[in-house]
């Protein structure tokens, strides 16, 4: 693999976006590495020969990546998903991450936090802290799953930028009702109690994903229509 450290930041970013497009289209790593290394070497030589970085990266990275892959006879393993399919995949992935986070919270985080932070003298504060940490774990798991699955898709990264604050906001909003419900259940750590409280958190997270997705969709349409 060539040393990319000498390349200007805009060229590096463009090369990364080209590679991300190939990854998103399912090109295998060997082909990607070969095409990317040859391209980086050619770009470096062009820069050394007096080329302007802005001239080299003038083409949209997605268009360039598609054209180069096609020219090299490397066909993508899968087409790039439509906007609707991407949105659906974001929601499903987010909920999957939240459920995993909820399970981890129930098995590890909640008992650990009770052990660590529970206090009879500062009961309300300790309960709020415990549920805040548990909620944050669920939210982080949700965002982590979305970020990991769509790490190579620039369009989805834009959607995630809207969804992330919405999930965090609704995750924080869920603390009040979750703590209230837990109080009603006498802070039971039984399976039924945890599932009920977790369900409240998940419902808020799902609302956050939905709101973020709607905002991203509306902004995207606005950008398209104004272009």
């Amino acid at each position, binding site marked *: 693999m060539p040393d990319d450290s000498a390349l200007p930041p805009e060229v590096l970013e463009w090369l990364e976006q080209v590679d991300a497009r190939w990854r998103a289209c399912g090109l295998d790593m060997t082909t990607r590495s070969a095409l990317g290394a040859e391209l980086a070497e050619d770009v470096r030589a062009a820069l050394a020969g007096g080329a302007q970085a802005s*001239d080299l990266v003038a083409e949209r990275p997605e268009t360039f990546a598609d054209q180069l892959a096609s020219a090299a006879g490397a066909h993508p393993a899968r087409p790039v998903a439509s906007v609707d399919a991407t949105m659906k995949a974001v929601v499903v992935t987010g909920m999957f991450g939240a459920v995993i986070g909820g399970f981890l919270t129930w098995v590890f985080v909640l008992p650990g936090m009770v052990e660590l932070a529970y206090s009879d003298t500062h009961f309300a504060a300790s309960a709020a802290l415990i549920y805040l940490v548990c909620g944050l774990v669920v939210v982080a798991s949700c965002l982590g799953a979305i970020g990991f699955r769509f790490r190579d898709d620039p369009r989805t990264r834009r959607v995630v930028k809207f969804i992330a604050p919405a999930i965090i906001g609704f995750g924080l909003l869920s603390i009040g009702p979750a703590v209230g419900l837990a109080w009603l259940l006498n802070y039971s750590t039984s399976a039924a109690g945890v599932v009920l409280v977790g369900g409240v958190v998940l419902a808020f997270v799902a609302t956050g994903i939905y709101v973020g997705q709607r905002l991203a969709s509306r902004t995207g349409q606005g950008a398209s229509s104004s272009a």
Partner: protein
Amino acid sequence: MTAGDASERESLLLKGALDMCVLTLLQREPMHAYAITQRLADHGFEQTGYGTVYPLVTRLRRSGLLDQRAESGQGGPTRQVLSLTTEGQSTLARWHKQWHDTVSRVDRLLETHPKESRHAG
């Protein structure tokens, strides 16, 4: 016709001829991909940038029309210099003939059409 339409029309016209232009430049002098974009700009094709030329020469190499050899730069990185293969030479000669034949036919049609219009009017 807007400037955008004109540019799109030019891209369309150039699409079938750009590979021939690139082969012609390389027949005269082996060079690397970016130098091709500079030569094209010298000939008035400023819109044809590196993002178009690099995939094109990749396709021509894959078709066996171009050869690529590494040339050590003077104190700089290694440059990949492109040149025509024997197959590239014969293909270019064929494309030149085909281009001239096509242009002749189109020219004849364009020259005939206004006369016929006048007769009709």
